[in-house]
């Protein structure tokens, strides 16, 4: 894709906190990363996981616990949460990849429900109140993530924002690299025609499992970062509604496109934030978007745009 588009997006990311409310922007980055991770599976491997909230929320709890109760620095806490998500991804993935299609989705859903149950019952999670009051602490023990800069009369948490932005860029880069790697080529192959990939001598289960682990680790990275931003981890993050939301984001933006999940996450998070005054109509609106999207533009925003421009975005 055009280099200038990347530079433009990067600069937008840099100036965003001065234009958009930083916490909103950080939430957006976390969900965008989550959707990107999910899309690595759905869009580039052809696996629909209906339980990705388990990795997102699971990592968020572990990170919160590590920082709050074990006194780890934020970057170590996030690393811990991400590793946990990778490990959980390995467990869930090894069970789920033995099944295909709708059964795959159902196994991931069932395992995620079990993770939800653990999150509800485990002693450190705070039940339905969630794990509250996670300190942001000092990055590498040096940089105060709580520090607020006042710009034009507005308090802006710039340290935290640029840390989150850096994490996002790292996650994005890993996903991008994976998609455009020799490994990614094989993933595309098995998405397109699994028996053929097998007959060419690829052990597809290993590829699926690896993709699953990478995807869940990055989903975990997103969840861990979110725990730091909001200073809490809650049951919402591990519930099946969140798993459904990430499907919506990806579908809306465009399955199997690099920028689609970004656009989708942007739309959904903005809607949720801007529509907080319309009450239950928000459910109707989100449902309506699902329906319109499925009926009229199955490729999503970015996918349809890519078709118009005749290139893959």
């Amino acid at each position, binding site marked *: 894709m055009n280099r200038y588009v990347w530079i433009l997006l990067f600069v937008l990311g840099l100036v965003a906190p*001065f234009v958009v409310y930083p916490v909103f922007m950080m939430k957006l980055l976390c969900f965008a990363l989550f959707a990107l991770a999910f899309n690595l599976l759905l869009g580039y491997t052809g696996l629909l996981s209906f339980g990705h909230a388990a990795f997102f929320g699971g990592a968020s709890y572990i990170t919160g616990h590590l920082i709050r109760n074990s006194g780890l620095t934020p970057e170590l806490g996030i690393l811990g949460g991400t590793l946990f998500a990778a490990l959980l991804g390995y467990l869930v993935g090894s069970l789920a990849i033995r099944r295909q299609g709708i059964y795959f989705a159902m196994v991931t859903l069932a395992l995620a429900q079990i993770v939800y149950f653990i999150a509800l019952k485990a002693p450190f999670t705070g*039940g339905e109140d969630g794990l509250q009051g996670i300190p942001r602490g000092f990055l590498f023990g040096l940089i105060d993530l709580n520090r607020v*800069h006042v*710009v034009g009369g507005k308090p802006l948490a710039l340290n935290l924002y640029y840390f989150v932005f850096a994490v996002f860029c790292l996650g994005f880069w890993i996903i991008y690299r994976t998609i455009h790697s020799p490994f990614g080529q094989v993933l595309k192959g098995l998405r397109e025609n699994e028996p053929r990939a097998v007959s060419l001598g690829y052990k597809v289960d290993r590829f699926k499992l690896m993709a699953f682990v990478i995807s869940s680790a990055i989903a975990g990275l997103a969840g861990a970062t979110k725990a730091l931003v*909001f200073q809490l981890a*809650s049951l919402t993050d591990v519930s099946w509604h969140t798993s459904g939301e990430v499907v919506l984001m990806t579908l809306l933006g465009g399955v199997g496109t690099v920028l689609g999940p970004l656009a989708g996450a942007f739309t959904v998070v903005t809607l949720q934030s801007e529509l907080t005054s319309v009450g*239950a109509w928000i459910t109707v609106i989100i449902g309506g978007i699902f329906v319109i999207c499925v009926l009229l533009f199955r490729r999503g925003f970015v996918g349809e745009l890519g078709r118009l421009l005749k290139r893959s975005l």
Partner: protein
Amino acid sequence: MKTSFTRATLLLAALVGTSGMAAAPTEKISDGVVKIGVLTDMSGPYSTLGGKGTQVAVEMAVKDFGGTVLGKPIRVIGADHQNKADIASAKAGEWFDNEKVDMITGLLNSGCALAVQKVAGDKHRITMNTGAASTDLTNKASTPYSIHYVYDTYALGKVTGQAVVQTGGKSWFFITADYAFGQSLEGNTTKFVTALGGKVVGSVRHPLATADFSSYLLQAQSSGAQIIGLANAGTDTTNAIKQAREFGIGQKGQKLVGLLIFDTDIKSLGLNVAQGMQFTSGFYWDRDDASRAFAKKFFAIHKAMPTMDQAGAYSATMNYLKAIKAVGTDDPDAVMAKLKAMDISDFFAVHGKIRVDGRMVHDMYLMEVKKPSESKGEWDLLRIVKTVPGDEAFMPLSESTSPLVKK
């Protein structure tokens, strides 16, 4: 996204060298407006007892106050936190930073309440919680800027537990929602039941949003306990009561006691099913002339009688505005000092007082559901059996774990 891009670049230029918190406001009313945010469940399971009705109550209070304070306008904004703590916390932060909101009320759902209270505490802004039940709000999570206005699990458990044991309900079986709120309600009630010589013969923890309670009810029935305590809320409570009636449980010998029930729950159950049940409330619309007058006005707008959350939101807003007027500024520290010094007496609270830990202490009521034959109207549902003075109902400061309480 409300600011333009050019302004952003200006701001970027202004960034150089700026840091630290803003200087204290010099004007009496910061930003020339007092903004009150109603952040609550507007679409989920608690939206009937809070929701839009809470916003209606706050708007009524502002109107009744005159629409301005110290010559500056008062604005009310509302939002749905969808019972998601992250949405609640983000919205509150945005309100404080961008919208210059001065006080947030409502906050049904303890998870959301705890998250918002933390954000508000960090930013030195006031929360007046009228919806959530958790005692954590005035204990380890309390801040110098947080007020818990209406009720909590301690008061509910204490008032109901003591009253029931005193009238002979010595042995209890709990049907408890398996989450922090339910457990805290069960724990608090148990403490007062056993203190008075009662005993708990068993309990069962059910998942949130259970449709069928018959299995639990049967377990409660065969335990032989005199009292079946429902330590849950909303649909879970109403379903349990309804199904108890269906199985004939709670009629002969055994008695059902709900620990958190709102008027709207009784309304949805119908008197036929709910008659005779006892529970604790912080407010009842038909208590005296003042409460009836408020309820009538509220009903005219909202088409339902106010719940304790909604009435509490009116009272909280009104007293907040009175405090601003009295101290002549909306500076949070000054307003909080005034609020904690004031006597709060109105249609909602009798002998109300906000303690150092943020607990608003006021009379609580033991309620009983009327028989259908006693009801004279659609909303004539309850009678006040007993008024419990606030100091007896709420957790004493000596037991508090609030960092604000010096020991």
